[in-house]
């Protein structure tokens, strides 16, 4: 098929992708949207197979089998809690593919001086830089979320200066390529420099901010894909890449807004750095505060004789896979006449919507899930707020302590409930590394241990009553 015909057929894919994005924006149609997108992708692949100039099939077929099998197995095997890092991983490999395409294009055209026109060489530079940053940055995000490297911000002296100089050097190599320099080493230097920059760029960002970073890198990969579209004069790459670039940017801004922080603050704020001073201030304010730990039986009695219990799930519930046990406990309490609901903070867990997914998996009835505003209105009438492995989203410092790095973030006001029970593994500060004065609040009791075990024990104790 000639390129004219294939570019026309690619329109089918473009339309399916637009519909996919539209359907993905509404809960009722989201799954169908994803399926429509997948169909569009298959169309694009088939059309590309038939395109004139695609004559050598074995690399494509072998590559698809290897990559597809890896993708399918990784995506099927992964536990729901590890979804965020999977998104990071698949985003990174996409960025890597875009960078490699620009490497191949430069390598193919550079030996004949003058064949690279300025727009093509500029696109090569853009997709090489953006794709490489997306690749290495996503791998660091993956490693942080998988806890292969520590999630806390990693900082060192002169960090901003080093990053700035490195980025300037990458940009200089890029401009040289765009301006028509055709030395092979330039593209290699560009790829290596941009990859290193991606690593250094994500290292100082705290693990709690990774969703925003992954969303941004997702938009980057879209841009890199659009740039490869200019290199290859291919409409489906330009449109689909830019759709993802634009919607990904929008999504990143919305995620930042849900945490009440600007994207710039996430990227350059080195979040955790502020924590020691803020923690000091908080500790000073609550110097007389004592952490009270309770036994399983105490908590079981509190829950069983309450009128209204609000469960506040967080990452600790996700990591312990305790959602089914939480529901079993809630059922038990309800059979005793306790009114149980769940307060869902928009950024609880490691991804927005993380808690909704997990509770839906445990078949928690939808009407019991309360969004933040609704839940906050109910806390003053709540007897017991049961906080399961949530930390930063219930930290009163966000409301009260202007020195706290999370000051201004909307939180669940669990401290307005009559009593607060916090299930936690230990007194270690949360993912963001910030102290939480809730734990020393006189209304609060702590129940230390793995969330799943604690919930199981609580259910057993409630049955005994």
């Amino acid at each position, binding site marked *: 098929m000639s390129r004219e015909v294939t570019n026309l057929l690619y329109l089918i*894919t473009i339309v399916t992708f637009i519909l*996919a*994005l539209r359907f*993905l*924006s509404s*809960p009722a149609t989201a*799954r169908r*949207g994803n399926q429509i*997108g*997948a169909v569009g*992708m298959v169309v*694009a692949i088939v059309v*590309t*197979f038939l*395109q004139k100039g695609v004559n050598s099939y074995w*690399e*494509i077929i072998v*590559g*698809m089998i*290897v*990559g*597809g099998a890896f*993708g399918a197995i990784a*995506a099927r095997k992964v536990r*729901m809690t590890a*979804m965020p890092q*999977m*998104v990071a991983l*698949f985003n990174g490999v*996409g960025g*890597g*593919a875009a960078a*490699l*395409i620009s*490497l*191949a*294009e430069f390598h*193919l055209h550079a030996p004949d001086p003058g064949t690279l026109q300025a727009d093509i060489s500029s696109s090569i530079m853009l997709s090489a830089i953006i794709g490489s940053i997306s690749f290495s940055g996503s791998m660091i995000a993956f490693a942080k979320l998988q806890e292969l490297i520590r999630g806390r911000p990693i900082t060192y002296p002169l960090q901003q200066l080093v990053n700035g100089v490195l980025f300037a050097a990458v940009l200089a190599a890029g401009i040289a390529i765009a301006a028509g320099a055709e030395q092979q080493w330039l593209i290699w230097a560009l790829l290596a420099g941009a990859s290193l920059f991606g690593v250094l760029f994500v290292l100082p960002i705290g693990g709690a901010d990774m*969703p925003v970073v992954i969303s941004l890198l997702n938009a980057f990969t*879209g841009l*890199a*894909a*659009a740039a490869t579209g200019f290199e*290859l004069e291919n*409409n489906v*790459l*330009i449109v689909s890449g830019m*759709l993802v*670039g634009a*919607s*990904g940017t*929008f*999504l990143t801004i919305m995620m930042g807004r849900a945490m009440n922080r600007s994207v710039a603050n996430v990227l350059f704020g080195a979040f955790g750095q502020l924590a020691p001073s803020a923690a000091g201030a908080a500790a000073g304010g609550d110097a007389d505060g004592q952490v009270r730990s309770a036994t399983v039986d105490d908590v079981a009695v509190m829950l069983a004789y309450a009128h209204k219990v609000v469960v506040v799930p967080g990452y600790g519930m996700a990591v312990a896979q305790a959602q089914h046990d939480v529901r079993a406990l809630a059922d038990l309490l309800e059979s005793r006449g306790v009114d149980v609901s769940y307060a869902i903070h928009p950024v609880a867990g490691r*991804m*927005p*919507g993380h808690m*909704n*997914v997990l509770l839906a998996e445990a078949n928690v009835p*939808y*009407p019991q899930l309360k969004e933040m505003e609704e839940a906050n209105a109910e806390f003053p009438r709540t007897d017991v707020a049961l906080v399961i492995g949530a930390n930063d989203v219930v930290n009163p410092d966000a409301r009260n302590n202007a020195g706290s790095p999370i000051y201004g973030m909307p939180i669940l006001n669990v401290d307005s409930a009559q009593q607060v029970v916090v299930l936690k593994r230990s007194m270690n500060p949360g993912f963001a590394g910030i102290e939480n004065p809730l734990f020393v609040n006189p209304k609060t009791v702590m129940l230390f241990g793995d969330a799943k075990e604690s919930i199981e024990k609580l259910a057993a104790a409630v049955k005994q009553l």
Partner: protein
Amino acid sequence: MSHGLLLTFEVTILVLAIFLGFEVISKVPTLLHTPLMSGTNAIHGIVIVGAMLVAGLDHKDTLTSVVGLIAVVLASANVVGGFVVTDRMLEMFKKREKKPEP
């Protein structure tokens, strides 16, 4: 069509795609942020088209062959993994919607 003219059309659709991208997801609830991110992640797997165009070339040297092959591997992982992960996330929402009905 001259190269310059083609470029103007390419830039035109690029700019239109920017506006469309913003517009099409402007009213998404927080609940769907993660699945939507994952879904767009799958869609940029479209780089597989670019990877196929490189890997499918005739008479290419070793470097291009190797780079093309790796690009196809990476892009395929992006496509398959992206769509499957998104589907797994959304599968759970569906279960929940059934629940309130008797």
